[in-house]
């Protein structure tokens, strides 16, 4: 497709601006409070609303800006996506559809799927009909993603899957899973994997909710018992799943700068334009500490860190996009997000003081301060989920700086002979 056919960026911007103003609901003033816990009813209602919003975008001709036209997208450029994100500021959007549905799941299907597979799923995703989840991590594998033990055994034109997956956000309200499974136990671990697509709600898949220490029950664990998947739902070659997974993980690491996802650049009334610092300043005020120089120091630190994160992301994205470095550079962003999120959480906890741990619930201020304690309990979440910061540090040292790789005692060993602890 030549660029000559594309709608000029600024025309697109104005058209988007008009359409959004007429069609899209706005974020309520003050922004939506990020709650650690919602009731299941609230959650399901939100999911339904997001399906509606995604359908609204699709019907309005604004879904899948960088997705190919033949699969229901607009076939436009990342620059178009960027202006749409700018115009989206202040509007609600279907955030549950972004990660992992648009990326990495749809991104993987676009890269590795057959024409039929894309036709079957990409338009459905863009219409808001399919929410996808990653069936990737397993209870026993931790950082060693290639060490999956969920097995897929060939039976004629089908595969039969058995095993367990974990850390799937909201599997209980999602539709499809992208699943990494072991199809060969007699070769080293990276060479015996394959990727499958499967509906989540079917006999043979039991979805169990995990309670996190902040009360959140979004994460799930799935138990797969004799789940039958047709070979036509396999993405990529048999035993060649690591090739798919490598890109899958890249898409996951870079979700925050993916042109396939919406990520409005600011929210209503500029409330969050100053990043976490704005919220922390409000917090310090609530805690009666806005005049305390120590509190002001922490707020300034949070702001500097959030800008630093944004500028690093920009640099990493640009460098990779212009071919200046390998995909592995994205591990820098991953590490930064983990480190920064932990620091923001610690700063919030510090600012809230005693009210963070023994909170008065009869006023909003008390709840806000108390939320800092609850959030602090899961401070490490962003340094664990989506690959630990330890793995990111390994990748930076080995793949970016070229330092010697860690000894892997499973390298070159048939997977069935690898030791995996008690």
């Amino acid at each position, binding site marked *: 497709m030549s660029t000559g056919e594309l709608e000029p960026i600024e025309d697109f911007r104005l058209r988007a601006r008009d359409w959004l103003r007429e069609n899209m609901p706005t974020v309520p003033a003050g922004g939506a409070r990020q709650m650690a816990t919602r009731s299941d009813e609230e959650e399901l209602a939100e999911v339904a609303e997001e399906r509606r919003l995604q359908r609204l975008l699709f019907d309005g001709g604004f879904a899948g800006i960088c997705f190919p036209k033949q699969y229901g997208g607009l076939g436009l450029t990342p620059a178009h996506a960027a202006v749409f994100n700018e115009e989206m500021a202040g509007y609600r959007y279907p955030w549950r559809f972004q990660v992992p549905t648009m990326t990495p799941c749809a991104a993987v299907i676009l890269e590795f799927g057959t024409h039929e597979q894309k036709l079957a799923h990409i338009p459905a995703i863009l219409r808001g009909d399919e929410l996808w989840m990653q069936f990737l991590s397993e209870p026993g594998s931790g950082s060693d993603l290639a060490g999956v033990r969920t097995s897929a055994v060939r039976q004629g034109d089908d595969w039969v899957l058995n095993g367990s997956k*974990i850390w799937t956000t909201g599997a209980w309200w999602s539709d499809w899973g992208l699943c990494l499974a072991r199809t060969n136990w007699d070769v080293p671990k990276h060479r015996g994997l394959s990727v499958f697509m499967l509906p989540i709600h079917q006999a043979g898949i039991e979805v169990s909710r995990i309670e996190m220490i902040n009360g959140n029950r979004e994460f799930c664990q799935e138990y797969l018992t004799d789940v039958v998947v047709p070979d036509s739902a396999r993405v990529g070659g048999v035993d060649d799943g690591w090739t798919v997974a490598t890109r899958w993980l890249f898409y996951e690491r870079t979700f925050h700068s993916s042109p396939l996802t919406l990520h409005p650049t600011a929210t209503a009334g500029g409330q969050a334009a100053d990043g976490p610092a704005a919220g922390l300043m409000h917090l310090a005020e609530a805690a009666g500490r806005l005049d305390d120089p120590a509190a002001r120091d922490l707020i300034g630190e949070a702001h500097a860190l959030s800008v630093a994160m944004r500028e690093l992301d920009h640099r990493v994205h640009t460098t990779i996009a212009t071919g200046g470095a390998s995909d592995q550079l994205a591990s820098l962003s991953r590490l930064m997000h983990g480190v920064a999120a932990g620091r923001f959480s610690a700063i919030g906890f510090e600012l809230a*003081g*005693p009210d963070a741990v023994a909170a008065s*619930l009869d006023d909003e201020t008390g709840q806000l301060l108390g939320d800092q304690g609850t959030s602090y309990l899961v401070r490490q*979440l962003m340094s664990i989920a989506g690959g*630990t*910061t330890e793995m990111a540090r390994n990748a930076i040292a080995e793949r970016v700086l070229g330092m010697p790789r860690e000894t892997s005692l499973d390298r070159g060993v048939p997977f069935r002979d690898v030791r995996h602890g008690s």
Partner: protein
Amino acid sequence: MKSGLTADEELFVGTTRRFLQDAVPTSVLRELRDAPEGYEPGYWKTGAELGWTSMLVTEEHGGGSISGNGLGDLALVAHEFGRAAAPGPLLSTNVVASALSRVGGESATEALGALCAGEAVASWCWSEPRPHSGLGDIAAVAERSGTGWVLSGVKSPVEHGAQAGLFLVTARAEGGLVQLLVPATQEGVTVTQLRSIDVTRRFARVAFDGVQVPATAVLGEPGHAAAEAERQLCEALVIQVAEMAGAMDRAFELTVAWAADRYSFGRPLASYQALKHRFADMKLWLETSHALVDAATEAAAGDDADRATELASVAKSYIGDHGPELCQDCVQMHGGIGLTFEHDLHFSLRRVALGHALIGTPREHRLRLTNLLERRNHERKATDL
């Protein structure tokens, strides 16, 4: 935990640990999260029989301890409480019982009996709500009224405030601080439960609105309670830091075991040098925390009030910072499983996070240390002249 325990002390620690393991294993703690008191009725009474409530009470008031060093023994119990994330008003009841026994006079005997027997709970009302700090900015006021006193002010967070029958309240009076014993049933007392991030520890806001008490409710000399209050603060801090060190101990133990058992890329986690070095740092923080608990305990039991204050604040500032860091790093080493309610690690994390923020943050204690050093400097200079 203190190094070099005597045989008696080891036996005592062993008994306490086994009792807590049996009475409040983590499965029971999970069930207690919605229990208003945080524990079953019989639990605290049995604990009292084991001596939890009477170690800071003199023998004439029915108290006593194994080794004769009550605070030392209590610190051992607090350490076990931290390891087990055990419920119960250990800190508040002991601090109040200690004060009653020391300066309560004859009228205290009855109250002490119920506290020591585990039949009543008392709360130490010291900290005040924001923007006041946990370190002694006292805004509550007590005024003489006839032969008695009238108390007004808000205390928060008050440990087990909703369960307590008796409050020991520090307030400002003419000439200085005054401490009053206020029954929970007194008119003008309003107790509001707070939400605690700990699973079983309970806190409340207690408001005193023109509460009238008789002159016999005053502990010690009105207007001259500062030294006594400081002593209570030091005891409270000792119990708090001992609990925190116990919680760190348990989290570290769990994580060392996990690192040995868990394999990644065919190797145990414990074989990865980047993790080993972090374990080394954690071990340093842990042993230093133990050492500081011992030092603060010894100092608080001694006669040098200045030294007691110094070591309590050193312990609190160090452990208050390193306890949470250690537990968070333990979570990180565990990965996702360490963030689940089903895993035991969060019991430690909650307890140290609580301890970090209450009775003065680490920063407040660092500032207190600098004030103390400055005062010493001035005194020295005055002496030199």
